[in-house]
């Protein structure tokens, strides 16, 4: 299914300097096509999370130009309402059941109650969470909570999904499983996805492009294309070509 509302991101010479004088990002030039899955990897402090915050409109650029669908990030977010952001922390509201957590974005937008009901049920079904609908976050495992967070992010049918190390706290098996699920959902709706991770393996498995950043100041060191077709099977992880790409990117990281 084609998404004609997926977002395009254009960054030209984007830089961010904090009030303290620390230069977090420098000369970021990046073009992200509608419906593409792009990962960003890099060492701690390279500004990858900061870049996501700029795209989401939570922070403002100091220099350069950043647009989403040719609009400044905040306007794009407020007018088009196509943005969802999955934060590192699942950030679920502990006093609400799963059902109500997923409903939150629609509630905030003033969607009618009947509509909310149908859409939440649909969404929970899609993400495989309908058994847990009445549970509270403290009754769920870390992985479950992240899935609820993703379900919440997807309920508004976004054109742009930002994800900041969402699976970082999970063990390897949990992470693999959620990678598969995420790809399944993405193949279905093809939103633009900008995915930040520490794991090169994960980046390569999920994305079409991997952006490698270096730290202090944060700059783009390299961009690698990953050409495997979708859907991507688990066995891809043991593919020799996969391994070579991972090795090349890892070298870039260390170098």
């Amino acid at each position, binding site marked *: 299914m084609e998404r004609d509302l997926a977002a395009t991101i254009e960054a030209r010479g984007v830089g961010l300097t904090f009030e303290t004088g620390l230069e977090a990002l420098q000369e970021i030039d990046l073009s992200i096509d509608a419906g593409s899955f792009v990962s960003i990897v890099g060492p701690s402090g390279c500004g990858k999370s900061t870049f996501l915050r700029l795209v989401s409109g*939570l922070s403002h650029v100091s220099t350069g130009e950043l647009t989403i669908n040719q609009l400044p990030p905040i306007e794009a*977010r407020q007018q088009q309402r196509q943005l969802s952001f999955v*934060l590192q922390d699942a950030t679920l*509201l*502990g*006093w609400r059941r799963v059902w109500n957590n997923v409903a939150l974005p629609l509630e*905030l937008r003033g969607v009618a109650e009947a509509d909310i009901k149908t859409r939440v049920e649909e969404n929970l079904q899609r993400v495989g969470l309908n058994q847990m609908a009445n549970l509270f*976050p*403290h009754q769920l495992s870390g992985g479950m909570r992240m899935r609820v967070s993703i379900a919440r992010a997807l309920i508004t049918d976004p054109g742009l999904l930002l994800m900041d190390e969402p699976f970082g706290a999970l063990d390897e098996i949990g992470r693999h499983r959620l990678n598969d699920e995420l790809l399944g959902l993405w193949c279905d709706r093809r939103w633009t996805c900008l995915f930040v991770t520490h794991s090169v393996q994960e980046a390569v498995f999920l994305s079409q492009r991997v952006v490698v950043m270096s730290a202090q100041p944060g700059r783009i060191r390299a961009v690698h294309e990953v050409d495997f077709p979708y859907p991507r099977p688990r066995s891809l992880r043991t593919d020799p070509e996969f391994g070579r790409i991972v090795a090349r990117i890892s070298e870039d990281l260390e170098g």
Partner: protein
Amino acid sequence: MNQKNHGRGAEDLRHWCGLTLPPLLTLGIVVAGWQMLVDLLGLQPYILPGPVHVSEAIATNLDSLIRAVSLTAQAAIAGFLLSFVAGFFIAVLFSQSAWVERSLYPYAIFLQTVPIVAVAPLIVMWIGHGLGGIIAVSFIISLFPIIANTTAGLTSISPPLDDLFALHDASRWQRLWKLQVPHAVPDMLTGARISCGLSVIGAIVGEFFTGYGTTDFGLGYLIIQTNAMTKTPYLFACVLFSTGLGLLFFGVVSTLNRLILRRWAAAR
């Protein structure tokens, strides 16, 4: 699911036993020790009455004591509820503007430190004596913990949750009612636990200074009179009933606490 519910019921019962049996046991030991002390030292009942004398006093004056406790309880409940509602609104006000908080917080602290002796005559002049004045004192004494704890709960939102609501461009109103207030509930209940005991003290002290019983014979009135008349066993009975009232309040609020906080269990 059913199994879980049964487990809940048994868990509650166990919790209740754990809560009430140790104090009761200790109480038994204390009462026995008390009687022994009085006998050993040969103390006169007007100095330190033993449990036997106090029980007699309770039996003789049960009607007055029950009436007094219920009057004091009414004042304490009213004072507490008022302080909870007012405290909540003041805290909401504080949470919405750092400037307002900084300007007015010192006055909230003043409420905690002001000696009632100094303020009571003012209360009598503005609100009058009797039940109105007593409730006012109970209110003043109970207010600060509610303000302090609720404000803390409303303003201690973690940055990721803040970001979540900012990303959805939530309005100030939505942020208040869907994020800040639910987030503050555990803190509000902590404040309530502190204030409920204070409200009883406030009702009794309020009676000392603003009750002027000619119709309101609450525990404060009884304490002053039985002390002046040197009816010491009766005085002790009043003290016991006051303590009992405080414990009862605390128990009710703690139970409410536990019931409400089930869903917040690990919200932070």
